[in-house]
């Protein structure tokens, strides 16, 4: 049986259907999860999709962090379950302290929406093993609060431990420190990124199919687990 990937829908999630579609196209089986669920229905991995959970009230991801499903996700992530947070999902992972740092308002104050060139810096994560180190990809980026910040010591640690997973190429779109677009936890099972690989999985609707690798990576890993 194909591995199962849970896709969480919060009130205000936008990209849960695209994330589910990306999982299916990569060969996985999708289990829809609801923010009020208290357990993960036995899934093998979880995607926290983009959007504006709980209206982004207070801070992006701050309310979602305390939803019932997140207690289950945090527990499973600490035990090694692969978790991918895209955009709002990345913000939720930072608010949950599964990933260090925080996402702040774009330095331009403008909402950015464009096809973004990225470099895959680390393929040693559950979600990027299908790429080659240094591979350049293009996927959509769309955020108003995507500026990655952390203190210098944390940034140095992330760099030294190879936990910067993807980096922006060209002009920095949102003021992220060291042009960081995505990071991983120390174990490599939890990855968060602002760009949207789930929007680049089919040539009909995406600028490329470069994003598919995030989903094939985790499925490959689960099949051989």
């Amino acid at each position, binding site marked *: 049986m194909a591995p199962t990937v849970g896709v969480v829908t919060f009130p205000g999630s936008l990209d849960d259907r695209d994330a589910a579609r990306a999982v299916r196209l990569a060969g996985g089986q999708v289990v829809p999860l609801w923010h009020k669920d208290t357990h993960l229905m036995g899934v093998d991995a979880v995607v926290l999709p983009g959007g504006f959970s709980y209206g982004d009230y*207070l*801070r992006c991801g*701050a309310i979602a962090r*305390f939803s019932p499903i997140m207690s289950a996700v945090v527990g499973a992530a600490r035990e090694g379950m692969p978790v991918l947070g895209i955009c709002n999902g990345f913000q939720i992972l*930072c*608010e949950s302290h599964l990933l*260090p*740092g*925080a996402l*702040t*308002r*774009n*330095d*331009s*104050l403008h909402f950015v929406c464009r096809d973004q060139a990225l470099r895959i810096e680390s393929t040693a994560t559950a979600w990027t093993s299908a790429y080659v180190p240094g591979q350049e990809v293009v996927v959509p980026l769309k955020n108003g609060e995507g*500026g990655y*910040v*952390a*203190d210098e010591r944390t940034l140095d640690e992330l760099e030294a431990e190879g936990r910067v997973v993807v980096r922006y190429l060209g002009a920095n779109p949102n*003021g992220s420190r060291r042009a960081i677009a995505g990071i991983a936890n120390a174990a490599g099972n939890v990855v968060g990124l602002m760009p949207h690989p789930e929007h680049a999985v089919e040539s009909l609707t995406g600028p490329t199919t470069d994003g598919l690798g995030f989903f094939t990576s985790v499925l490959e890993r689960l099949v051989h687990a």
Partner: protein
Amino acid sequence: MARVVVDVMLKPEILDPQGQAVLHALGRLGFDGVSAVRQGKRFEIEVDGPADADLAARAEQMAATLLANLVIEDFTVRVEG
């Protein structure tokens, strides 16, 4: 009934583009001599019971748990009677 006021501000080292936009707007409106603006959040919380040390401690907890993200923000708590 007691009242707690929590002020949350971005840490000084975190860029505040909103504050900078306000700073520039003030300049355009002719308000001279404004050298810096930082924008923050203020929470006014009403709580049953007395305004005592226990409430101050609980308010600190509320701020540290939810109202502020200590990675990027600082907060101050004031308990009013």
